[in-house]
Structures are given as C-alpha cells and as structure tokens.
C-alpha cells in the first residue's frame, strides 16, 4: 500500500513538473512578448528591455523556471496585468466561490445519481432501468449553455421565480446559486448514474447475490447489505475523476450567470492575455486534476479488498 502510494505520488510530481515546464515554455520563453503584454502595445523596445532587466528576465531560462516554480509554491504568482494587483489576491476568493459551486453540485449530484443508478441496476431491462437510461441520455445531450438557456427562459423570464444572474453583489444568496447548481446537476448526474447502473447490474448477476437470495434473505437486505457495498466501488472513482471535466461546465455556468468564480477568471485572463493569471489558474486546475487522480487510485485500492490484500 505504501509502495503504491509513493509510486503514485512520484508520478504525480513528475506530471506536475512536466506540465509546469511546458506552461512556462509556452508563455514565457519569448521575453519581449512578455514585456509587451505587461507594458502594453504602445511601449517601445527600450522600455521593454528595461522592464526585462529590472524583473530578472535576463537570467538563463532554466534559472528563471526554477525561480518561477519556487515563487508559485510559496503562493506568489506575480502581478495580474488586467487587475494590476497580485494574482494571489484575486485567485483565492475566486477559487473559494468555485469551491462553493462545485461542493453544492457534488452534494446534490452524488445522492441523486447513486440512487437512480442503483434503482436502475437492481433489475436490468426493467421499466425503471429503461426510464433512468433514457433520462440520463437525454440530460447528458443538452450541454450546460443550452440547458441554462432553457431554464432561465422558463424560471427567470417566464415565471420570474429566480434571478437571471448570480453576481452575488449583495453577499451570498441562495436564490442566485440555485440555477447554476441546478444546471450542473442536470448535465452531470447522467454519467455517474450510468456507471452506477452498470456496476450494480454486474453485481446483481454475481454468485453471492444469488446465494443470498436463495438462502431466503429478504430482498431489501440483499440489496442493502450485500450488493450496495460492492456496487459503489466503481462509481467512487468516477465521481472523483469528474472533477476533471466539471471545470468546463463550471466555466460555462460561471460565464452564463456572471458568477465570480475561478472559471470566469481563467477565461477572462485567456481572452485578455493576462499571462500570469493564466499560468496560475492552469497550474491549480492541473494540480486539482492530478491530485484527484491520486486520491481516486488510493481510494479504489482501500475500498476494494481484492486489490488491498494482494
């Protein structure tokens, strides 16, 4: 177990080094372009060179990379070009807002998709199974920006029940967070539900379930005690790995509802050319993705006795 964990940890560290190096090479190998971005299009070459000199850009490339990584590890990502303030000051509150969004998404998505998946997988081919399968294909076919359009047309403009934007100008507001979370859950639950269904259906055909049923244990207990525990191992990894593509949905939803989160920060930085913000956001996004992969590998091993004891 410890060997596995340390091997996974090493590969995680290696991937982070490669990713950060690639990122640095893409955005900062052309020094004059960096100076041009920071000082604006009307600066002349002498000003740019002076700026490069003052900010230590004339050191060798590798040395700059090491300094940059060191700064990033201590939470110093440089100054934002667009907002004229340290990137860290903008980044952390935004990340917090997105964590609220993602946390609420998980809070609703997990129970809904697990319940539906288990109900569908209990009897393969039954009416409830067909209904859940078709329903999840339907909802995963409507991308977030389309379903957000539909839901805001209904709930905001037609019925007038909810606000159409979620800028949270007057502090945190439950009415404003409802639609973003709802849109994410509607699009996201289908995938996990299908995975749970497949896993549950497989468990239900296994010998130990047949034995339990033949022993005369009540059906309810067979499901709750024997089937669920094994059927929920596979969805666990799926849920954690969802973090990776949840980010696309989060960006779309944050843009649609003008929610001040991490995704909108990254997109705005990309459209503006705010390289230090792009670098910081990308590093954090990749770190979250790689770390969730690590957690899911370790968790899978811990949950699955067949792997744990060999």
């Amino acid at each position, binding site marked *: 177990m410890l060997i596995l964990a340390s091997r996974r940890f090493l*590969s995680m560290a290696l*991937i982070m080094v*490669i*990713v950060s190096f690639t*990122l640095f090479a*893409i*955005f900062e190998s052309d020094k004059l372009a960096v100076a041009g971005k920071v000082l604006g299009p009307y600066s002349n070459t002498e000003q740019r060179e002076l700026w490069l000199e003052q900010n230590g850009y004339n050191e060798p490339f590798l040395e700059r990379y090491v300094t940059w990584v060191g700064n990033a590890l201590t939470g110093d990502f440089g100054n934002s070009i667009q907002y004229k303030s340290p990137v860290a000051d903008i980044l952390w509150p935004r990340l917090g807002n997105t964590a609220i969004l993602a946390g609420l998404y998980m809070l609703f998505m997990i129970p809904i998709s697990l319940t539906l998946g288990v109900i569908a997988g209990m009897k393969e081919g039954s009416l409830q199974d067909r209904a859940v*399968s*078709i329903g999840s*294909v*339907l909802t*995963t*076919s*409507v*991308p977030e*920006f*389309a*379903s957000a*359009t*539909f839901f*805001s*047309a209904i709930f*905001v*403009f*037609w019925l007038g029940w909810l606000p*159409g934007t979620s800028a949270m100008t007057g502090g945190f507001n439950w009415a404003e967070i409802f639609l973003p979370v709802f849109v994410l859950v509607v699009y996201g639950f289908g995938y996990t539900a299908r995975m749970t269904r497949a896993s549950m259906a497989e468990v239900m055909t296994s010998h130990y379930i047949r034995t339990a049923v033949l022993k005369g244990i009540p059906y309810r207990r067979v499901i709750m005690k024997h089937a669920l525990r094994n059927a929920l191992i596979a969805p666990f990894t799926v849920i954690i790995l969802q973090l*990776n*593509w949840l*980010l*696309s949905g989060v*960006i*779309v939803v944050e*843009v*649609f509802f003008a929610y001040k989160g991490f*995704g909108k920060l*990254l*997109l705005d930085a*990309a*459209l503006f*050319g705010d390289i230090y913000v*792009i670098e910081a*956001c*990308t590093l954090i*996004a*990749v770190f*979250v*993705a*790689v770390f969730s*992969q690590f957690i899911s590998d370790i968790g899978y091993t811990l949950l699955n006795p067949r792997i744990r004891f060999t």
Partner: protein
Amino acid sequence: MTDINQNDVAPPSAIARMFKNFLLIRESPIAMFGFALIMMWVILAILAPVLPLYDPNTPLEPFKFPLSAARDGGHYWLGTDHKGRDILSRVIFGAQTVLVWATLATGVAYIVGMFMGVVAGYLGGWWDEVISFVSNVLLSFPVIVLYIIIITYLGATGFNIVLAVTFASAPGIMRIVRGLVLDLRTRDYIFAAQTRGESPMYIMLVELLPNARGPLIVDACLRLGYTTITIAMLGYLGLGLPPPDPDWGKMIAETQPLGSFAGHMAVVPAAAISSLVLGFNLLADGLREISMRD
C-alpha cells in the same frame, strides 16, 4: 449446360457488406431515432444553399418574433435576431459549420489516437511506455484548460480547433485502442500474419485495426456528440471560429442578454445543439445495445 459452380459467385463487395451491416440498426428503435435526428441536420446542412432561405448574414428586420411576416411577403419562421438576421437561416447554415468541423476534428483525433494505440499495444516496450506516459500527461489536463491554452496561444481558427480537439481526445482513443489491441494480438490470425512475414505496419493497419472496429464505432458516435458540444461551447465562450458565419454557440452568447423580451433568439440555437447531440448519443446507445445482443 453451363455448370454454375459455387465458387464462381463473387463475394459481396465491401460496400454491399457495409450496407448490410448498416441495416442492423433497424433492430433498435433508439438507434433509428438518433440516426434520423443526425440525418435531418446533415440533409438540411447540405441543402442549405438551395433552400428558400434569407441570407444568414444580411441584416433584415431586427427583433421579429417567430412566424412573423417579412416586409417582402415571406415569413421569418423562427424570427430574427438583434441584428435583423433570419434565425432559421442562421441555424441551418450553422449546422454546416458545426457538422463539418466536428466531423473533421473527431476524424483527425481518431486517426492520431488509433495510430498511437495500435503502436503502443502491438509494438509494446518503449513505444508503449512513451506513448502511455504522454497520454497520461495530456489526460491529466482538464480538457477545457487544454482548449483555452491552445486557442489563446495559437489563435481561434478552424485548424487550431481541430488541433485542440485532437490533443484532448487522442489520448482517450489511444487507451481504448491499446486495450483492444492487447487482446487481439494473441489471436491466431495475427500469428499467421507474423509467420507469413508481414511487416508490423501491415499487421497493425490491415489485421488489427479493422478487427477492433466494433467498440470504436460506438465510441466515435459518442465523441462526435461531445465534439459538437465542444465546438459550440468554444463559440459560446468566445474562443470559436471567427465571425460572421453563424455558429450555434456564438448565437446563444450574443443573444443571451436579450432573454427578458426575446427569448427565442437563444432558445432556438440551444435546441438545435441539443437535438444534434441527442442524435449522436442515442445512435451510440442503440448501437451498443445491438452489439451486446449478439
């Protein structure tokens, strides 16, 4: 009397066999429905230049609601947008854009991913190590970050979108193909080909890939749907193809703020995307069901 020998009958041509296999989708109503949805958009997109439509980029009369009469005696069946462009025409011409680029991008991603997968699976050793590691690094990127970096760094052109989709999808395709090849490479016909002295390239392309096609067809349908979403999403986020040609995602982004009094402008393209993606997903679902049945 001419003797008709069994051997004289030519085997059915490849096209005839493909057509016969294709008719299998009649077994699944879900697949049929999905296929019909896709074909509807394909046919509309092909016929777009000859259909009696207004020009998609010409401003006519702004803020017309669906079914309203036009000044020249025609109708704006789906209304017009804030710049007075006919929405029906923009949605149909937008289908051209999204179908062409989604197919192209998925196709290129498939060629690259299949080649990586078959090399990693069949040649093994260092090839496998290197290709798998590169794929793992790429898969560790959240896809949207990959898109944003490639497109902001290289610019928003059709070619760069194809490139970005390839970077994002090829590693996943590679994993599937590699898994299939690892299973197929122990079959007798592969040993037979090796004994005949066929080159590894021949074995990979002629013996292995065609026999791995089953699961790949289902995956390709799903990926086409997902690439459709991606292209529309990039358009929505302002990272898509350059204007003025209609793009479903951009149509939503442009008209979304007008939702309070002209909701149809954003709802129509949103429905268009959803129906096309639904077509791909239902087709994939139906095909998977058919393949599981045998």
